[in-house]
């Protein structure tokens, strides 16, 4: 293991070799861990594709018919959560970094960070016990008055445990993550850029649009991806809040909601045995693939704007 090639050939120091070696070793360690998880997932998933589909819960015609609603539900819930969370999170991040008085901003930033620590079980307790009953009348109103929109098609849920409630809970969960990282990135905007924009007569919003947002964009995308990762992988909160069914439906307020892969694993794993365990792990593998695809897309988006990064 040698140090990465420097642009100008410099004297090789022991410290550099050790340090870059350690950095590379850390990267290698990640590779090892991931290989382990991947081997586990793939090895355990293979039987799922070979078994008789009748052994799967709900007796679907094939494994894919079982997975379909789960994949849809996972992506749908996460997309809804992002749709709610991202504009709000960016708003808060900007508020803290560029709008709020400095003293207030520090306190707020600190509080938001803390909320990232609320365990998912608590979001589950809150979502199922407090949010769902309080929001149910609003769903009744939506279905009564806007039932012609496919999203609010009747019947209405009697308990409020719908995918929209889950999306709200997930959005509240990922808000602190997206906010915290975006705020740090916005705060790193070079003061000179901001001052230059203001000096040219830009309003505050124009300054943010021209200096802060382009600079922070890769970081914001990273933050959103971390949030999405949590939304896609969230287990307990979804399991506790959602009223699930094996359906593909875009209705936001009904009693039958598509469920998500991790919640489905959590709900069925304890009582699962035999090859059904493999089926559940195979759905985990699929979730893995979904997250990876989404992440790759984001990386691609960041790579296009790499010029703004400080380092090379």
């Amino acid at each position, binding site marked *: 293991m040698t140090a990465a090639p420097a642009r100008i050939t410099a004297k090789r120091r022991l410290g550099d070799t050790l340090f870059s070696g350690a950095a590379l070793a850390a990267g290698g360690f990640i590779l090892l861990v991931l290989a382990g998880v991947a081997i586990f997932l793939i090895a355990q998933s293979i039987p799922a594709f070979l078994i008789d589909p009748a052994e799967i819960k709900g007796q679907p015609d094939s494994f894919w018919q079982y997975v379909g609603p789960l994949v849809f539900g996972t992506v749908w819930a996460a997309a809804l959560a992002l749709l709610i969370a991202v504009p709000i999170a960016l708003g808060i991040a900007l508020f803290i970094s560029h709008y709020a008085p400095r003293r207030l901003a520090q306190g707020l930033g600190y509080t938001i960070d803390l909320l990232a620590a609320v365990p998912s079980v608590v979001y589950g307790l809150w979502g199922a016990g407090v949010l769902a009953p309080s929001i149910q009348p609003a769903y009744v109103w939506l279905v009564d008055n806007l039932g012609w929109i496919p999203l609010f098609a009747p019947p209405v849920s009697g308990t409020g445990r719908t995918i929209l409630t889950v999306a709200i809970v997930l959005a509240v969960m990922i808000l602190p993550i997206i906010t915290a990282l975006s705020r740090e990135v916005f705060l790193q905007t070079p003061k000179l850029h901001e001052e230059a924009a203001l000096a040219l007569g830009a309003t505050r919003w124009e300054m943010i649009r021209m200096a802060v947002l382009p600079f922070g964009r890769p970081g914001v995308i990273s933050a959103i991806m971390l949030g999405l990762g949590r939304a896609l992988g969230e287990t307990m909160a979804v399991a506790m809040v959602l009223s699930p069914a094996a359906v593909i439906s875009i209705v936001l307020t009904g009693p039958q909601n598509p469920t998500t892969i991790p919640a489905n694993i959590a709900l069925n794993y304890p009582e699962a045995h035999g090859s059904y365990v493999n089926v559940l792990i195979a759905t985990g593998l699929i979730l893995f693939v979904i997250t990876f695809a989404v992440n790759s897309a984001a990386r691609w988006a960041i790579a296009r704007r790499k010029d703004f990064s400080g380092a*090379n």
Partner: protein
Amino acid sequence: MTAVDNSPRTVVNSYTAGKLPRWMPGVTLAIALLVSLGAFWLMSMADGGEFNWILATIVGAVLFVAANWFIARLVEGGRQAVNRLVTSLVIAAFVLALIPLVWLTLTVVVNGTPTLMNGTFLTSSMRNVVGAGGGALHAIVGTLLITGLAAVISIPVGLMTAVYLVEYGTGKMARAITFLVDVMTGIPSIVAGLATYALFALFFGEGVRMGFAGSVALSILMIPVVVRSSEEIMRLVPNELREASYALGVPKWRTITKVVLPTSVAGITTGVMLSIARVIGETAPLLIVAGFTASMNYNPFSERMMSLPVFVYTQYVSPGTDAQAYFDRAWAGALTLILIVALLNAIARIVSHYFSPKLGR
């Protein structure tokens, strides 16, 4: 639009010409709210329905945003109007987000405080406790040990990987690692638990449960968060700083430890705290690999170890006849978890404050 009547004002000072007075948004907001609340009140009087003040406030807020934009557009022109519009939207986003966050926090604090303060909660375990009483000391110790060990594994690995990606990584290897870290963010927590269990079962036999296995499972979830957040922050360190350091003949590794890391320490601390916050509340993997017990266990390398999320979950899911005592303990456990993170956060902030260079900000 009743509010419009107030807006035109005799120009007295050429510096403030074409600008709205500072009190303008406040007055507009008050008028918008009054109009909306009044309208809703009249409507509720008319059809005898209930006075829906939540909806009225929301309509009032929307009215304000529109009026504020419209007035500014008339007086100050389009650019200023957009500026004002965005300002109101940013503040609205903030207020909107505060609602669930405050609601959630209040729920936890109100439900959790009485039990947390009852004297036994922080000094007892659940061993030989049935019904009311007992405490979560075993879970607190377990959570601290398990998360602490996870941090000991994850933070060096994660930080060094980020350093590699930002400072050394070029070509295939860096791309591969970036790719893998991305994949890792996608591991659902329950899968991390299952995989860790499979690994430990290889060495220790079926049915193995130990706190350390929980740490390993949490590390799988924690490392990518550390890498991604610290990578983003380190990338933002201006190249001028690095180049200045190299120009003074400072070796690369000293540049990293003395310039890059200290410059980004605040952001890295946030990232690390986020990652701890992300895993300290994980239930599913710990339920699988660290197990469940009602007794104290200080040894993370043998036998079952309780953790706070598992404590909260089991108290909620399988309560005894006196269910309220169990739910109270669940809320108190959740509150304890939040307080632990608050404490860790405070310590980390202080530490990062002393290590970060003093900048203009």
